């Protein structure tokens, strides 16, 4: 193959991929476009550009923020995601270190149970889980992280264990000989070494919990707390006439924080996905 030929192909590919990228963002743009339209025009002509007739200004957004109180559900989603991820990171990394360093029967059982839990579909446990959570009063955004810790422990413990195995034992032994107790050893020695794994696990768990629909839907006290996916499903799946404009506005408001988050932490997210895949 000669170089000019190759270069020509690459230039064509750049153009093709640019077009593909435009097509890829089009659905998101379409939602944004429709969020500015009046209700009846959304389902009747979703692909039509804005005109004087169908333009609705920011009314849909005002409706979404005032009537649906969309911001309170964003708040709930933030509380649940942040608390759950922190809890998972702290508890699972400590547990994984314990499992890897204390190799007794209990650790082994725990390790294999964690792997096992990763393949179990949620439908298998959903009924009992929602009843258990109810009876333990874990149905608020402040306590649902306990459930997430339990159900998300599998992946997190597994990933942390994979990393702990690669830490040389000598470093920890040296710390212990210098008089650190296990807690100090963990927080001063092990934790800093594991930083990349913390980021990977945090990314994977955030992507899961932020978008999770069924678990909070079944566990949370829905009269008082709703998360973003629950509100959107409520609006659409509701009875009678659905308010398309409100839904479009809510979806845009739901997508914007995600895209911002993605653009800021893009590098970490992609690294996290790769790390998760290699360990999986």
């Amino acid at each position, binding site marked *: 193959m000669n170089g000019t030929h190759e270069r020509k192909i690459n230039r064509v590919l750049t153009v093709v991929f640019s077009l593909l990228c435009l097509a890829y963002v089009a659905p*998101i743009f379409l939602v944004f476009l429709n969020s500015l339209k009046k209700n009846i025009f959304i389902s009747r002509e979703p692909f039509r550009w804005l005109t004087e007739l169908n333009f609705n200004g920011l009314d849909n957004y005002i409706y979404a923020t005032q009537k649906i109180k969309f911001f309170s559900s964003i708040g709930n989603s933030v509380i649940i995601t942040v608390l759950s991820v922190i809890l998972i990171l702290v508890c699972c990394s400590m547990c994984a270190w314990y*499992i890897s360093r204390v190799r007794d029967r209990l650790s082994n059982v*725990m390790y294999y149970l964690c792997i096992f839990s990763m393949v*179990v579909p949620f*439908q298998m446990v959903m009924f009992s889980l929602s009843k258990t959570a109810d009876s333990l009063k874990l149905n608020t955004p402040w306590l649902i992280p306990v459930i997430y810790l339990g159900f998300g422990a599998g992946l997190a413990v597994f990933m942390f264990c994979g990393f702990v195995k690669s830490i040389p034992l000598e470093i920890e032994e040296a710390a212990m000989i210098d008089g650190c107790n296990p807690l100090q050893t963990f927080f001063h020695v092990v934790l800093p070494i594991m930083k990349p794994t913390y980021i990977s696990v945090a990314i994977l768990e955030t992507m899961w919990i932020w978008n999770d629909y069924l678990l909070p839907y079944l566990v949370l006290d829905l009269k008082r707390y709703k998360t973003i996916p629950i509100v959107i499903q409520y609006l659409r799946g509701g009875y009678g006439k659905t308010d398309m404009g409100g839904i479009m506005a809510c979806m845009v408001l*739901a997508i914007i924080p995600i895209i911002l988050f993605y653009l800021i932490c893009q590098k970490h997210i992609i690294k996290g996905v790769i790390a998760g*895949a290699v360990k999986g």
Partner: protein
Amino acid sequence: MAHSIRKYFPIFALPTMAAFCIGFLWPFLQGVYLSFCEFTTVTDAIFVGFKNYIKVWGDATFLHAFWYTALFTVVSVLAINILAFLVALLLTRGIRGTNLFRTVFFMPNLIGGIVLGYIWQLIFNGVLLHWGRTLTYSTWYGFWGLAILMCWQQVGYMMIIYIAGLQGVPEELKEAARMDGATSRQTLFKVTIPMVMPSITICTFLSVTNSFKLFDQNLSLTAGAPSNMSELLALNIYNTFYGRVGWQGVGQAKAVIFFLLVVVIALLQLRFTRSKEVQQ
């Protein structure tokens, strides 16, 4: 060292283990038990043996959902992996704009299933409007709609993993093949693909389990319409639980069968692709 760490069991391992029992282990065991019971809540369960399982066999919607899910899994796994691998191959040639393309293709992954479903519902219904139909007109509209949606969401994720795999293939190997007179097609099939087999294993595993366990997208895109004919297994189980009074036991039995299916498929798939991997 293990000895002194063991003394700290309550701090290191207990929180995770306790949450694991509440959030996974207990609901799982109770779920297995309840599949042999007739119940409406956890407290009024009466043991009935295999009655629920027999009822599952007589349930035509479940059998339909099973074949529908199996077919959907095959189609979406093939489409996602072939497309993702192709894009990854083209994006590792060093063409201009590679980073931007990668960023864009990955983005839909961060949007939750519920929102994705409604975005595509808007698009599909808008297109089908030309023929005066909607997405719920036939079983197969929902099927292909869901397959397109899954491709849009997952190709980027798998592409990231494939790119990482492709970048790990040593340049010398491909160079050596070229020197020996291999065509670019031969290099691809005899060198590159065997070398990225671990990535293929992971990606097929992830896409098989994702498609098989799919729930959110199914719920929001068609919700099973027309008359439960576009229901995947997960949604079928959910509807049995919460849509039919007195069928909770059958729902739980379905969930157990579903769980066993997931385990069997995951194991078979891992074994199949692992056997194709080469030692590096």
